[in-house]
């Protein structure tokens, strides 16, 4: 049984070698190579490169985030570059960028056939303010904002609103509306003050009239009257004590304070 298998292996080898020799001998010669056609117009410029793709993804980012530029240029090129500091690039590629402001990138592909450009823009927006506990960064206090309101000044023994007081109170009115809106439940006190000259008793009445005149003016401009209170200090709380017109005028006023 063993002798019979040996016999068939040898026989296959012989047969194979005969075939191999016979194939080699019978191979046909290859055809002559095709002669390439000469270019019809030798001077004609080659086609310009084609910018198949130039994108920025995503196109809008917040400051601190990044965007990816992708591009693909076909055709014969000698140089491909992207401005804004990216520099020379390959025909196909991508580049991560993180501009701090909105930036337009320009890809310039130059080849024997000419130059092509394409742009991609990354819009950069400011990030939202970080959420921090109010303790570390308090908002502007109502005292500060009320302290910025302008006093209304008056003539001696008068409670009519003068033109300069009218201007001041008109500005105060819009500020007051904003303050009362930002601080629900707050109440603003309008203090009436007088200079040192009239009697203290009479001046308590005069100061009340000055505060009321200022309040009436403000409510006519739409400031809610139920959020305004008046108090007269007469000449009990002067802000200066000199006996001259400059100081007297400073004391003849309606002044704002935060209610308790």
């Amino acid at each position, binding site marked *: 049984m063993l002798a019979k298998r040996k016999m068939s292996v040898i026989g296959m080898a012989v047969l194979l070698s005969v075939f191999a020799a016979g194939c080699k001998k019978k191979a046909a010669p290859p055809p002559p190579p095709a002669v390439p056609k000469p270019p019809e117009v030798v001077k004609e410029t080659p086609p310009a490169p084609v910018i198949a793709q130039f994108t920025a993804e995503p196109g809008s980012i917040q400051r601190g985030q990044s965007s990816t530029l992708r591009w693909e240029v076909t055709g014969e090129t000698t140089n491909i570059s992207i401005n804004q500091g990216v520099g020379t690039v390959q025909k196909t590629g991508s580049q991560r960028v993180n501009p701090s402001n909105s930036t337009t990138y320009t890809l310039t592909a130059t080849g024997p056939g000419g130059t092509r450009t394409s742009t991609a823009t990354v819009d950069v927006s400011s990030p939202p303010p970080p959420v921090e506990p109010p303790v570390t960064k308090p908002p502007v206090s109502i005292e500060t904002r009320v302290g910025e309101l302008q006093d209304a000044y008056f003539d*001696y*023994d008068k409670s009519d609103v003068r033109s300069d007081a009218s201007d001041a109170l008109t500005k105060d009115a819009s500020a007051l509306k904003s303050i009362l809106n930002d601080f629900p439940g707050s109440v603003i006190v309008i203090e009436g003050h007088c200079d*040192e*000259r*009239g*009697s*203290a*008793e*009479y001046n*308590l*009445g*005069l100061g*009340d*009239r000055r*505060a*009321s005149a200022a309040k009436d003016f403000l409510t006519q401009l739409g400031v809610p009257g139920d959020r305004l209170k*008046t*108090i*007269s*200090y007469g000449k*009990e*709380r002067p802000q200066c004590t000199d*006996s001259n017109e400059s100081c007297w005028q400073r004391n003849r006023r309606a002044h704002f304070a935060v209610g*308790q």
Partner: protein
Amino acid sequence: MKKLVCFALAFSAAWLALRAQDIRGTVVGTAGQKRRIGIPDFRGSGDAQKFMAVFNQTLWDDIKGAGIVEMVAKTMYPTFVPQQPSDFQTPPSGPPTHSGGHLLTDWSGPPPQLDYMAFGYAGTTNGVFVLSGWFYDARPTVANHEILAKRYTGTSDEAGARKTAHEFAEDIIASLGGKSVFGTHIYFVSSRTGKKEIWVMDPDGKNQRQITHFNSTTIQPTVSPDGSKIAFTSYARGTPGIFIFSVDPIRDLRYYNQNASVNETPAFTPDGKQIVYASSASGRCCRIYIAGLDGKGLRPISNSTAIDVEPKINPKTGSEIVFVSGRSGPQQIYRMNMDGADVERLTPGNGEASNPCWHPSGQQMAFAWTQGYATGNFNIFVMTDLVSHQYVQLTHGEGRNENPSWAPDGVHLVFMSTRSGSKQIWSMLADGSQPQQLTTQGVNESPSWGK
């Protein structure tokens, strides 16, 4: 023109002088020259000795302060000073002689020429200061010289000596037809604690003590006719509002304020059962209101569109009110009936007038006025006749002078003056003489003199 002005000035000066005499005559009941009084130093025995300086000074100041007699200087007295009636010798018959103080005529004759004299001595018995005092009418024309002979006792210290001096002086002044201010009280505003509070003191400025402790701005004290209560204005609850306190003991009687941005300048009615005051309750400040001591039953009296403040009811008639108003321009003093009718302006309209205060007689009115001075420079005036509107001027530009208030005796006035450089309380006689500073600490103002 210049001549005319000079003449007018001279004429008004003469007229003012005339009026000044009138007011003295009206108030005290004696016209013309003041009687002359001598008070030689009293001596003390034993423990009483060391308190005699205080005693003699207090007696002298009280009699002088009463303002109804002329004090004859001690340098004009004879050398011998009697201490009791038996020290006087019986005058010898024959022509008048001088015996160095042993005769009453030594005192009634020149140089002292006394109409009256007080003398006496003090001693200490069982720890009690005992003063024996005599008051004599020294004039040779009277039959009985002795007006007063009395013993006074006090604790054996300076306070006791001061007490007996006050009481003796009170009797002397009463015997001369005057009223002593001893035992009366002056309420006032002081800022010496840093905040304006109500304080009280004796008429000589002694015994100053704090009444309120609001730690706010507390002003405008006024005392009730019987002296048992005070009303005032305070910011203690926010806007200016009225308070009524009893004074002995000091207690808040809980006046209920009507809802208003201003309730101020309270004053008691003559019966002490109501107050009149100024309020913005009906709109613009202020109308004159009247209300009970609990704040109930209030009703408006005045009805103007101007500032009406400082109502004061005539203490004698109870039927008219003087008050301050800006209805005709600068603040002036007006009067009206208790129902608000018959309004009449009392001050002529020039300058600014304030602080009306009725004389106890109900016939005159002290007030502050800037007439003749720059705006704000008030002086004390007295309107001596509310029908003719005649007036006299008591202060003359010695700083600002405001807030006059009559003493119950009708002879003295207390007021605020800046003449010492800051606002302080002063007293003076009704003719403007004998100004005396009563306070020194902090700012002091708005005195109200009551029982």
